[in-house]
């Protein structure tokens, strides 16, 4: 490597309201090189990406693109220099169609003053075909599931002939098949001389495509070496300074009376004849491809979707779940999949985000709040779940993804439900936190809660669930005992 790198970062620093997110970060990316940026939640990866994209201005340091130095970039400069970013939060336009979202950057760059629907559609079609997915082009993005949004964001980044494509956790919401096609795209980009900066918590993927891995911890670069010099364990250790094992829940009593029984549940075509039972202390996994009805089932159990048929029993008592209030009253909790819009009150404090589920417990007969109690409990949970935050009063939006997820978990754990449904509990969560969350799940089971885990992370399902239900087209098609199967085989059964 004698030629000048495509992009060089020199001593980049950035702090937010007292948090030093980046501290003298330097590394470089060569043309056509696939570099992985690894690090725990909150280590500063997304911040670094935003600086490269020109969305945030660094406090110090400079970025050099093909020999030209910038103390700070601007989105338009970055785009003009061939940098395309797939953001962790997608940065899509919910009110525009899929086609428009995909083609927007290209339209901006083309200099056309008028828009041409046909041109836009053709471009979007081509790009979606390139990543081998099929999403209705005229659908509004707000109506899409998270994974589809992710795919739209990926397609958009490919619309321009970029020199560097930055991907901030592009695979978190994707199923195995889609991940594979994305990895194939990365290889193709590389072959075409396009560099890729790739961020992912799924370390296996990292090894599949990356040539170089840059590990950052607490805003510092702690290692910057060819991928070949790492293995799974050493990478995890570099990132966190710890070693991990998967925590598996202890066996439960299969004879115990079920805590939750679902019989004949159906909803106009989307769900059909759902039957299952959940026993205290059991961790039940639900696996399925995108659109298989997992989230619909979860929402139905939480009173968010009306059902057409069937019944739900909690502790043998039939319950009518017309709203989340009913579900909560029946002891059911739900950690939603999209924590940014469904889970969190981003601009409110951590304490309030945790307390909001349980205000009644802290209010007196006149509705008086026990504020000390609330604050105390929030601090307690921050400690128990290891949330990295200066205090419980900062807004949740200042936390990194993994820590935000812990706040949502804390809210539901604080409410001590009997049944907890977790939809993608470790989406976008680093391996350290992931292990912690698995520990929490095992601990819940220990305390005889019924836990339902919906996840695309197959090893996770296999590792921490007693049983896995496989859903297809709104039906449960198979029941697999946990641990009896490996991830490859499970993936094959999902796809078959």
């Amino acid at each position, binding site marked *: 490597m004698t030629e000048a790198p495509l992009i060089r970062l020199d001593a980049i620093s950035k702090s937010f*309201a007292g948090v030093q997110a980046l501290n003298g970060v330097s590394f470089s990316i060569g043309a056509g090189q696939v570099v992985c940026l690894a690090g725990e939640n909150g280590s500063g990866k997304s911040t670094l990406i935003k600086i490269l994209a020109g969305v945030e*201005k660094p*406090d110090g340091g400079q970025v050099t693109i093909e020999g030209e130095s910038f103390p700070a970039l601007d989105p338009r400069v970055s785009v003009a220099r061939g940098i395309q970013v797939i953001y962790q939060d997608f940065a899509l336009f*919910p009110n525009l169609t899929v086609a428009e979202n995909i083609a927007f950057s290209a339209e901006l760059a083309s200099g056309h003053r008028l828009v041409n629907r046909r041109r836009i559609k053709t471009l979007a079609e081509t790009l979606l075909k390139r990543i081998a997915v099929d999403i209705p082009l005229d659908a509004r993005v707000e109506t899409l599931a998270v994974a589809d949004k992710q795919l739209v964001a990926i397609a958009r980044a490919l619309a321009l002939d970029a020199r560097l494509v930055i991907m901030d956790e592009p695979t978190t919401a994707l199923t195995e098949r889609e991940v594979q096609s994305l990895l194939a795209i990365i290889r193709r980009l590389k072959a075409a001389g396009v560099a890729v900066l790739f961020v992912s918590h799924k370390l296996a993927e990292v090894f599949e495509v990356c040539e170089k891995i840059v590990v950052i911890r607490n805003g510092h670069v702690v290692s910057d070496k060819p991928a070949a010099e790492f293995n799974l364990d050493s990478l995890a250790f570099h990132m966190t300074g710890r070693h991990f094992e998967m925590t598996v829940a202890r066996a439960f009593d299969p004879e115990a009376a079920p805590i939750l029984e679902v019989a004949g549940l159906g909803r106009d075509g989307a769900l059909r004849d759902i039957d299952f039972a959940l026993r205290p202390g059991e961790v039940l996994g639900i696996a399925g491809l995108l659109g298989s009805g997992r989230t619909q089932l979860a929402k139905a159990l939480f009173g*968010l979707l009306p059902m057409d048929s069937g019944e739900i029993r909690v502790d043998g008592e039939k319950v009518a779940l017309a*709203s*989340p*209030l009913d*579900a*909560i009253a029946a002891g059911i909790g*739900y950690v*939603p999949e999209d924590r940014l*819009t*469904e*889970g*969190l*009150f*981003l*601009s*409110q*404090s951590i304490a*309030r985000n945790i*307390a*909001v*589920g349980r*205000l*009644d417990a*802290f*209010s007196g007969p*006149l*509705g*008086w*709040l026990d*504020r000390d109690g609330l604050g105390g409990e929030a601090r307690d949970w921050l400690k128990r779940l290891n949330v990295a935050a200066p205090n419980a*009063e*900062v*807004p949740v*939006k*200042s936390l990194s993804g993994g820590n935000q997820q812990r706040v949502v978990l804390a*809210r539901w754990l604080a409410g001590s439900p009997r049944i907890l449904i977790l939809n993608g509990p470790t989406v976008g969560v680093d391996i350290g936190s992931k292990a912690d969350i698995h520990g929490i799940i095992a601990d819940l089971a220990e305390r005889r809660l019924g836990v339902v885990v919906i996840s695309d992370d197959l090893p996770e399902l296999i590792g921490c669930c007693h049983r896995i239900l496989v859903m297809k087209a709104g039906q449960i098609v198979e029941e697999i005992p946990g641990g009896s199967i490996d991830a490859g085989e499970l993936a094959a059964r999902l796809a078959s």
Partner: protein
Amino acid sequence: MNKPTAPRTAGQSRGIQALLSSEIGQLSVLTVIIFGVMAALDPSRFLTMGNFSSMAFQFPEFAILSLAMMLSMMTGGIDLSVVGVSNLAAVIAALLLSTLAGPQAVGLVGGGTIALAIAAALLVGTVCGLLNGIVIGIFGLPPILATLGSGLIFTGLAVAITGGSAVLGFPAAFAFLGNGAIVGVPMPLIVFIVVAVIVWLVLERTALGLRIQMLGTNPLAARFAGIDDLAVTVRTYLLSGIFSASAGLVIMSRANSAKADYGSSYLLLSILICVLGGINPYGGFGRVAGLVLAVLSLQFLSSGLNMLQVSNFAKELIWGGLLLAVMVANGIQFRRKRR
């Protein structure tokens, strides 16, 4: 998704620096400056008991309406019906007072009727607020449309009931509410303080208040968190209705009459006060203290300019300019902090 008026971090403020960087701190400084300038321009007239008492009689009516407006704004809504509710409530109370008691009534008849009329006005406020809450919460109308429509209905009912003319002839004792004073503290001011304390308690000390703020921040997440948005919405507009009715009673007593079009200029004014007071019009954030400071700075400015015989149009200009200047100062502060 998040609107540009994101709040500052609610970090504990320490020292003058922190005070100045908080919205409340800036508003306090502004209020003190306005007070200082007005006092300096004409101390002999501004710094008198008479002037203070006069101001204390003036602002409570629109300040109470602003509190009612504030509650709805905290949920991300708006209540354009506050003035309509206040007049309808006042008209009903006035009809009771004038038909059941009349100007000569004293003692038990007078007192009883006054109590009845006050109760009736508050009941009208409750019903109007309930209606707003239901229309917004159950039928899902955007608050701006729902309350614009209901405001027209309330005003229209007041016109229809009275034929447009004023209702007169209350027992003398009723005038105390708007014009009397207890140990020198004007009654309207006392009513305002009571309402302000209630709103403050509700927002800062009760579960309902916290729910209002959370609902205003992110309605979808509120649903997932098990907040009963219907119950919160209905209660918010209900409280707003009751406070509007209280403002109506104060206006009615101060005018010793009730009429369908009293206080019509207070609607935009109360929105302006909320916004100057730092209440986020998109919901979620706002402090009663900010609103009180905004009301005070407005009143100092208004009375001071009247004293200087500044035209009332120039007052509008100054008021609009002030709002912009404060926000620009805020914004510059904001950006400096981001760096």
